[in-house]
């Protein structure tokens, strides 16, 4: 049995493991969780020749400092991430994202920070040795569900790795274009009519600011208070990722992967599936615009998004 693991020498701000997410649990109040940026999660797996459903380490802003113990592995990091590899002999290499590396016993990975984005992903060939809870590895820190007893990783924790030996000797590297577009496409929500004509216009025409109140549950925006002329509360009902709720103060909130499963604020819009990765990566201080699209347009855009994801995945071969 493999006794290879990462020892955590610095935990980083919010280091968890994530995968596609956990389904069929909303009705008892458990969010999907899963990687915020699903495309980069898949790409990190593919770069080390993994099944796309393997768990990866997700980190936010400052990432962890990890030391490899008892093995030799392949790893890759995706996202817009500044990192270094510190070899056992203390020589230091600047890391490049979207490339697989060989890591020897006692080498370290120092994930210094993400750049102009929030999340990055680290995968190892063969995946991590973790237990699934309700069919997912994803850590949900709000309900303490998933790997590591549902808690984010902290100093001295160990993350065990399935393979103890190198599986691939071929270097794989792709060129990835980080999305920088700040236009977020939205389908009108079920309570769009609750808002005044002026508020409806503002919503699709003016800029909104991403505030510091942003985490895996959601992102609060500011800039324009949207006037509600019907009711600032609705009878609580289900939520999904991407829903934009507007509470009484008029400032929109976008729901992300760890959102509460039920909410009582009017839904002005829903971010289209193809733009969810990009929304999740918005850093506080970003200025964004919402653009209305129809259901049919959203489906076509999603197809283009999927084709692009597949193009990148194929380049990893």
């Amino acid at each position, binding site marked *: 049995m493999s006794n290879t693991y990462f020892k955590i020498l610095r935990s980083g701000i919010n280091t968890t493991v994530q995968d596609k997410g956990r389904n069929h649990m909303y*009705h008892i109040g458990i969010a999907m969780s899963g990687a915020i940026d699903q495309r980069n999660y898949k790409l990190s797996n593919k770069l080390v020749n993994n099944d796309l459903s393997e768990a990866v380490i997700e980190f936010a802003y400052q990432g962890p400092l990890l030391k490899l113990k008892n093995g030799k592995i392949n790893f890759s990091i995706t996202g817009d991430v500044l990192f270094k590899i510190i070899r056992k002999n203390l020589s230091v290499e600047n890391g490049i994202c979207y490339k697989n590396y060989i890591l020897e016993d006692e080498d370290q990975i120092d994930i210094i920070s993400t750049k102009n984005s929030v999340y990055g992903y680290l995968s190892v060939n063969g995946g991590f040795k973790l237990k699934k809870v309700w069919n997912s590895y994803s850590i949900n820190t709000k309900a303490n569900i998933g790997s590591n007893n549902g808690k984010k990783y902290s100093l001295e924790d160990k993350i065990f790795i399935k393979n103890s030996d190198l599986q691939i000797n071929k270097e794989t590297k792709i060129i990835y274009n980080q999305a920088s577009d700040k236009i977020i496409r939205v389908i009108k929500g079920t309570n769009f009519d609750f808002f005044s004509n002026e508020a409806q216009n503002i919503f699709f025409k003016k800029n909104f600011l991403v505030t510091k109140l942003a985490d895996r549950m959601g992102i609060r925006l500011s800039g324009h208070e949207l006037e509600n002329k019907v009711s600032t509360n609705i009878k609580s*009902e289900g939520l999904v990722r991407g829903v934009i709720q507007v509470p009484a103060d008029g400032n929109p909130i976008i729901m992300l992967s760890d959102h509460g499963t039920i909410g009582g604020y009017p839904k002005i819009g829903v971010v289209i*599936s193809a733009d969810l990765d990009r929304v999740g990566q918005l850093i506080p201080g970003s200025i964004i615009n919402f653009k209305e699209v129809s259901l049919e347009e959203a489906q076509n855009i999603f197809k283009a998004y999927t084709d692009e994801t597949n193009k990148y995945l194929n380049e990893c071969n």
Partner: protein
Amino acid sequence: MIKNISNLGDAAVYCDFGTEISEKINLIVISYFNSLSKLVKEQKINGINNITPSYNKLIISFDLSITNYLEIRKIVLDLKVKNEINNNHKKIKIPVCCDDEFGLDFNRLSDKTKLSKKEILELYLNKEYFCYMTGFIAGMPFLGDIDKDIRCNRLETPRVKVPKGSVGITEQFANIYTFESPGGWNIIGNTPQKIFDQSNLEEPALIKPGDKVNFYQISKKDYLNWNE
């Protein structure tokens, strides 16, 4: 039955059963939930991620790379729904300690309702409640309806942290905070019973939509010595 069906974004179907909040309407929503869940479990439909019943809505989210709005909409409209019968559901008794250190909002409630703590508790404990839905946080049940005389709005300023196990009321509803969480409900006591248990993989949530719930008062001594 479903009054209106529409899309919520590009990856969810929104079924609207009207605006009424009642056991009758909610049981219809739960019937739809059960019928759809059965098809998902038997792998007769692909792509559904989650189905969320609430008072009078049902939201079905799906994976847009597998299916789409029109496909799921058709499945819902073609569904042969077996009407839920009320007595198919569990009856659950929940212990609650209402000593002042747990019942944080009796002063406020007495102010608003003009009833004493004793009178409020009598009305609260004398009723069987129906679970409309579970959610917001893991396992939190939304129960109703509480007696008209003890109904009261949410706190003007919600608490940043409501203790785990807190039993709260607002408007016609009662709930239990299964985790420490922010919240604005009026807190009347605390239960030592585990309402959500991550280690129980089969049935983590003790109370599910459609179940009936009674509360009974326990002493602080019983609370501290509670053993499941």
